[in-house]
């Protein structure tokens, strides 16, 4: 659907602009798992305020724009076991790898970082295999 692709490109440009503001303004790499995870495990206590303001912005703007773009629909699974397993895997994996789709993906690839490119190949590969197995073989998702 071309409309979805245009919205994807537009939203993607905003995500890249966000990363540019965080980098050129504050001198920091915009990685969602690192910003949140540093607060959770205490490693980011030194600049907790900056992290909290960033997270507040991420959480609030989708709500502020509801009158314009509507309330989003996540279509997330309602299987509690799937949700808990997925959440644990994402939380552990991103912090062990030290980055997720924004840090390794957007910020790493654009910097031509080998680590970012390798991480992205592995998490997309693992994600593709997981969807193939859980959807087409086991029929869980």
């Amino acid at each position: 659907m071309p409309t979805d692709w245009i919205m994807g490109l537009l939203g993607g440009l905003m995500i890249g602009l966000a990363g540019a503001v965080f980098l050129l303004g504050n001198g920091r790499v915009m990685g969602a798992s690192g910003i949140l995870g540093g607060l959770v495990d205490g490693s980011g206590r030194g600049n907790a305020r900056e992290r909290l303001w960033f997270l507040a912005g991420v959480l609030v703007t989708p709500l502020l724009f509801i009158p314009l773009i509507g309330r989003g629909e996540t279509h997330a699974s309602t299987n509690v076991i799937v949700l808990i397993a997925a959440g644990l895997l994402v939380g552990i994996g991103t912090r062990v790898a030290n980055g997720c789709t924004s840090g390794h993906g957007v910020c790493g690839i654009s910097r031509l970082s080998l680590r970012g490119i390798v991480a992205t190949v592995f998490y997309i590969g693992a994600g593709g295999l997981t969807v193939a197995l859980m959807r087409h073989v086991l029929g869980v998702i």
Partner: protein
Amino acid sequence: MKRSVLALVAGGLFGLGLRISGMTDTTKVQGWLDIFGDWDPTLAFVMGGAIVPMFIAWRFTEGRTPLVGGDFPAPPEPKIGRPLVVGSVLFGMGWGLAGLCPGPAIASVGFGGWPVWVFFAAMLLGMLIAPKLRDALDSGA
């Protein structure tokens, strides 16, 4: 003060970009990973759109300092260690399972309802225990 405002602006752009690009919709993310099913290319447009401003931003850092002072992030270590690979594979499995990664999970906390909260809580728990696994992988490498 300036640091907090810039973090809020970056976070706000990030959250809105994730929302309008469709990345808070798990069917679009899982659709992109579903190469054996009804493949959805939207995520590639989002990634492409995000990488362009970030690529320019990284170029712009050369010979400059961040707006708030200090230094830009040091060049990433070229080392591809076990934590990067193992962590990215675990992350990818969770990403495929639920169709959520950390950024969109934070962005949809406000409108996604209980499935997102369950995923989010499990992700925080995963982030809390991740340092132990990372240390184990590091020392064994």
